[in-house]
C-alpha cells in the first residue's frame, strides 16, 4: 500500500500556507524569514513528490537548486538583518517604516 501523491501534496500545501501565515502575521524579521524557508521546504516536498510519482529526476535536481538559492538568500538576508539591527536595534518590521506613502 502506497501513500498517494495527494497526501504529500496536501501536506506540502499545508506547510506552504503555514509559511504564508507566518510571513503575513509575524513582526520579527527573523521569524518571517524562517516562514519563507518553511514555504520553500513545502515547495521542495512537492517537487520531490512529483518527482517520485513521475519517475523524473528533474524535480530532485530542482530541489537541489532551490536549496542552493535558499542558502544564498539566507546568507544575504541575515546579513541585511544584521545591518539593520546595527542601525536601528530592532528587527521588528512594524518599526521599519521610514519608507511609506
Amino acid at each position, binding site marked *: 500500500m502506497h501513500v498517494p501523491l495527494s497526501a504529500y501534496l496536501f501536506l506540502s500545501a499545508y506547510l506552504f500556507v503555514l509559511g504564508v501565515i507566518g510571513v503575513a502575521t509575524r513582526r520579527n524579521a527573523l521569524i518571517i*524569514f524562517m516562514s519563507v524557508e518553511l*514555504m520553500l521546504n513545502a515547495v521542495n516536498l512537492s517537487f520531490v513528490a512529483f518527482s517520485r510519482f513521475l519517475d523524473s529526476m528533474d524535480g530532485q535536481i530542482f530541489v537541489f537548486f532551490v536549496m542552493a538559492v535558499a542558502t544564498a538568500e539566507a546568507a544575504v538576508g541575515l546579513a541585511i538583518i544584521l545591518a*539593520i539591527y546595527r542601525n536601528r536595534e530592532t528587527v521588528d518590521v512594524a518599526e521599519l517604516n521610514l519608507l511609506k506613502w
Partner: protein
Amino acid sequence: MDISLAQTPWGAVLPLILLGGTGLLVLVLDPVLSPEGRDRLPALSLVGVLATGGAVLSCWPRPQVAFGGMLVTDQFTASCSLIFLLVAALTLLISMGYIRRTGLEHGEYSALLIFATLGMIVMAGSLDLITIFLGLETLSISLYILAGFLREQARSNEAALKYLLLGAFASGFLLYGIAFVYGATGSTNLVRVREVLALGRVHSPLLLTIGMGLLLVGFAFKVAAVPFHMWAPDVYEGAPTTVTAFMIAGTKAAAFAAFLRLLMMGLPALQLEWSRVLWVLAILSMTLGNVVAIAQTQIKRMLAYSSIAHAGYLLVALVTGSKLGSASILFYLVAYTCMNLGAFGVMLALAKGNQERLAIQDYAGLGLRRPVLGAAMALFMFSLAGVPPTAGFMGKLYIFSAAVQTHQIALAVIGVLNSVVSAFYYLRVTVLMYMSPGAPDIPAERTAPALAVALALAALGTLLLGLVPSSFLEAALRSVAPLLG
C-alpha cells in the same frame, strides 16, 4: 562520466563568460588596487559590458540551443541581452560619480551590477524554468544587496529588507508554480510543456492552470504589477539612486523577457486564462500607479509609482499575446530604459555633495538655470508621459496598436486615459523646472563627463526612437519571431 569541455558550445556562452569574467576580474582587482585604481573599476566594468555587447552581436544572431534547452541564443535573447547591457552600461555611466561621492565599494558594486545583468541575460535566454528561476535569483539577490548597499543608511537597510522579505516570499510562490507546472506536465522545459499541452498529455489541466497562475504572481511581483507592487515604491525610494535606476529599467526588462518566454513559448495554449488575469493586473497597475504618483513629493518615489504604471502598459502588450504586442514590449523597454535612466541621470547630475535632490520641489527653476539639463529632463518627462515626438509616444503607439489589433479596446482606452493622468505629474516636474521661481542653490558646476555621456545617449535614444522608430521596430519584430515558433 562524459563530461568534456570540448562539447561546450563556446560560441553560445562566450558573452556570458565575458560578462561573468568581468565581474570576477573586478572582484579580484578590487582589494589589490590603489584607491585611484579602484575608481576606474566601473570603467573597466563598462568595457566588459561593451565587450559583452560586441560578443552578443557577433555570436548570438545564429540561433542555437545549448545545454539541452537551458540556454537559447536566438534573436530574442540577443535583443533582450542588448537591452540589459544598455541598462547596465548606462547605469555604470551614471554611477561613476555617484559611488565616488557616496564612498561605496567600487569593486563589489560594479561586480554585483554585472552579475545582476548576467542574471537577466540568463532569464531571457533560457527555455527552462529552472534556469529562468536561477537567473531571476541571480538578479534578485544582487539587487537585494545593492538596495542595501548604503548600509549605514536606515532607508537603504529598510529597502533591502523589504525587498528581500517580499522577494523571497514571491519566489516561494513562483517556485510553487513551477512545481505545479512540473507536476502537471512532467517537465520544466518550456518547449516540452508546450508540446505536452499541444498533444493534450497534461496530467492535470487544472494543476497546470494554477501553476501558471502562481508563475504569473511571481513575475507580476518582479514587474511590480498591482497588487504585487507594494514593495516597489519603498525599495525604489530607499535604494541608492543609481541602483533604483537600474532596478526600474532592468528588473522590468528581465521580468518581461521571461514573461514573454514563458507565456508566448511555453503557455500559448492557455492564453485565454493568462490574458484575462493580466488584463486585470494591467488595468490595476496603470491606474493605481498613475493615480498615486500624483500625490508624491519625492521624485524617486514618483518615478517608482510611474514604473508601476509603465509595467501596466507593458502588461497591456502582453495581454494581446500577439507578435506586435511582443515586439512593442521590446521597443517599449528600450524607450523606457532611455527615458528612465535619463531622468535618474539628471537627478544625479543635480546632487550636491551627498545631498541628493529628491523632493520634486527641488527642481524649481532648474530648467532655465541649467538649460541643457532642464531640457533633457523635460524631454524625459514628456517621453514618459507619452507625448510625441518622443520614444515614449512611439512605444505607447505600438502597445495600444497591439491592443486594438486584438480587440482589447477597453484596455487601450483605459491605457490612453491613464497616460493623460500620468501627464499631470510628469508635467509637474516641468512646471517646477520652468515656471516656478528658482531655488537658489542649484549647483552651476559642469556635469561629470560620464554622466553627460549617459544623458546624451539617453536623450538621443529618446528622440531617435520617437522620430525614426522604424528600424528599431523592425528589429523588435525580428526578435520576437522565435517566440511565436
